[in-house]
């Protein structure tokens, strides 16, 4: 399966079939998710209507970490197996991960002001480790742009992605390891979710919607990258 997908031509054929489905799932889930979270959820007994921010904050934060895991995984495969599509996948995922992480920071800050009394707190482990994640994404994108030779760029960027992966567990466990304003995990925790069903179901729909949106855009961006590489080699062939 993986070796079959290593062929860019076969990947393009397959992704042309899969892409419309991921797009359709994303649109349906996001429409349902946005409607449900805005119009059909009750106010929280402590947070009132500010809890509405949860439905855009948690999925963005989840995607920041999920996309990074995809990127680091693809980077590892690219480094170890020289899988031609792995580097393309990692490179295509990075800007999406950066966008989700920026969204998590922005929506989190807008939620923090009414709930914690501050938009931002330097020295807060969860907040700072999330900001570091954004910087790692930006550094990764910058590294790709800084090195002209795609083979060398892929290698350097993959090493950065793997080193930066150390931040992922730090983000997840920061709420347990340090004293932070951020609440502890309420979904991915031993003993199951502590969050009420009336919030959990629309939240999970939003997370799924974000995930399908990412998958669709990832496939689209990978196709773009393959086309751009083809254009470059055609140009070089013409110049020679």
């Amino acid at each position, binding site marked *: 399966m993986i070796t079959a997908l290593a062929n860019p031509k076969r990947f393009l054929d397959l992704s042309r079939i899969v892409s419309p489905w991921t797009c359709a799932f994303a649109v349906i889930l996001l429409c349902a998710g946005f409607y449900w979270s805005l119009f059909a959820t009750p106010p929280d007994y402590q947070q*009132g*209507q*500010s809890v509405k921010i949860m439905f855009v904050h948690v999925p963005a934060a989840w995607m920041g970490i999920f996309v990074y895991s995809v990127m680091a995984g693809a980077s590892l495969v690219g480094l170890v197996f020289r899988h031609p599509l792995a580097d393309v996948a990692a490179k295509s995922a990075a800007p999406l991960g950066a*966008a989700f992480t920026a969204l998590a920071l922005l929506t989190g800050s807008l939620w923090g002001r*009414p709930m914690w009394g501050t938009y931002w707190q330097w020295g807060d482990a969860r907040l700072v480790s999330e900001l570091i994640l954004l910087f790692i994404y930006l550094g990764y994108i910058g590294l790709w742009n800084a090195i002209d030779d795609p083979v060398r760029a892929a290698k350097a960027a993959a090493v950065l992605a793997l080193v930066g992966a150390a931040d992922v567990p730090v983000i997840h466990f920061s709420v347990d390891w340090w004293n932070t304003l951020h609440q502890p995990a309420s979904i991915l925790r031993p003993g199951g979710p502590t969050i009420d069903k009336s919030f959990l179901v629309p939240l999970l729909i939003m997370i799924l919607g974000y995930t399908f949106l990412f998958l669709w855009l990832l496939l689209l*961006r990978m196709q773009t990258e393959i*086309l751009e590489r083809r*254009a470059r080699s055609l140009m070089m062939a013409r110049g020679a």
Partner: protein
Amino acid sequence: MANFFAMGGYAVFVWPAYAVTFLVLITAVVLSLQSYAQARKSVRQLEEEGSGTEDTR
């Protein structure tokens, strides 16, 4: 309806959070579609030019 927009007094936090979410997600979609269309166009052009020059030789 006005009650809904007031968001229990949290309107100034809730609506900007949703606005920035829509903005970023839509921008990601638009930019990705644009660069895909652009890449497709340039490959097509290069392939046409390539076959054209071969014909004239």
